[in-house]
């Protein structure tokens, strides 16, 4: 086992030389988490928009459930997806357990409620401003939802970022349904957990650095886009 100082030096070396293992792990992480974010947006945004402009009995219960689901524990999601995809589960015939697809499914379930709940709040606030004009223009609900989603696009970027951040940083769900199999389902967070437990801090630190860099870069990019949009009064 290296000292912490040596580990940090090695970590920098791994990042700077572009170690093949590191690139593979980072690549799979991004593939899984970006896919999950994409699917979660496809599910969560229309759902958030529909709830934002709808009034129905029990709406407060739906809102409470949506908000509560934002705090879904990743290990519980992992376990539930595992039970569905395991050989004895109802979807076992698909043979998806311990594949990146299973990891994408688990992360989508984890972050879709986050997207739905946060976007619902943003879109409802916007709808308060637009509702009378929309009624005057006789827009149907789908046209209203489309307009709200487009006009809130820069605010919704932050929602997408929150979802992506949750996905790329979680370990509980992907380790259960992915299994942390080398060259197949090993992602950044599961690698850090594994390498730390093995005492190989260099790789764990290197991956940690990449993870932090990705988080900072994505945040900075979104911030820049929002600032540009604000200048044009699009936020």
């Amino acid at each position, binding site marked *: 086992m290296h000292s912490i100082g040596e580990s940090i030096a090695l970590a920098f070396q791994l990042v700077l030389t572009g170690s093949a293992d590191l690139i593979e792990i980072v690549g799979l992480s991004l593939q899984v988490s970006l896919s999950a974010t994409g699917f979660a947006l496809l599910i969560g945004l229309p759902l958030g928009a529909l709830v934002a402009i709808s009034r129905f009995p029990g709406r407060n219960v739906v809102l409470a459930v949506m908000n509560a689901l934002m705090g879904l524990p990743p290990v519980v999601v992992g376990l539930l997806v595992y039970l569905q995809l395991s050989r004895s589960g109802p979807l076992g015939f698909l043979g998806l357990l311990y594949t990146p697809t299973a990891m994408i499914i688990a992360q989508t379930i984890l972050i879709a409620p986050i997207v739905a709940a946060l976007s619902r709040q943003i879109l409802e606030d916007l709808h308060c401003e*637009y509702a009378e*004009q929309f009624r005057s223009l006789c827009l149907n609900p789908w046209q209203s939802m489309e307009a709200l989603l487009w006009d809130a696009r820069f605010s919704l970027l932050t929602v997408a970022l929150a979802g992506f951040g949750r996905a790329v940083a979680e370990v509980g769900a992907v380790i259960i349904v992915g299994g942390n199999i080398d060259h197949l389902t090993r992602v950044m967070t599961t690698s850090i957990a594994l390498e730390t437990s093995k005492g190989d801090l260099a790789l764990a630190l290197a991956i940690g650095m990449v993870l932090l860099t990705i988080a900072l870069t994505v945040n900075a990019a979104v911030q820049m886009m929002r600032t540009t949009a604000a200048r044009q009064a699009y936020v």
Partner: protein
Amino acid sequence: MTITGAPPRIEEATQAPILQLSVTDLSLRFGEATVLDGLDLTLGPVGCTMIMGPNGAGKSLLLKLLHGLIKPTSGRIDWSGYSAADVTARQAMVFQKPVLLRRSVAANLDFVLRSRGKDRDRCHALLDHVGLTHKADQPARLLSGGEAQRLALARALATDPEVLLLDEPTASLDPASVLAIERIVSSARDRGVRIVFVTHDIGQARRMADDVVFLHRGRVAEHAPAAAFFPEPRCQAARDYLNGKIVV
């Protein structure tokens, strides 16, 4: 489940004209507060009606009632046999503070043309009509007050309304913007669009009105042709209002 903002039925344009308008014993109350109190009004099929009156007289709410955006507490609004909610799509309303979408000027107009199934190629002609061609690609929310109202007018005209309801569209605007908007509205009237225009600006009412409806305390205090109203209003409240006295 109800969708807030769900539109009233869109009637086919081929249906019978919706004018004239007959409002009978219209009341609107919010809890203890009475805004409109047994209002009666008849409007003919053509021209520009200016609705005037002191603040709190119920002018803006009357416009929203006529447009079908809110429901009265009691009374009847009859657009030649149609209820207000049935003919919302055959009217257009320009609000005092227009809500513009967070997109470019042209995209704001294109959205309405597309949503209402109109010819999207009319976008530039409409922008030209309201003098905003040079602003087409600019963010709509960075327009000045006068430009924003002209865009709101273009958006309203894009729906080919039979009735154009205007709620103080020139409030707080400079004279040049007021003139530009009055020209656009006059041109719509000349093309046969029925205009119902709420204003506090007596000079504007004199320039634009074919007839004047003066609201006071939730009722129509006077409804007269402009030529008769301005020289000699019949009711005391209208006389005081035109003489610059405070009317409450």
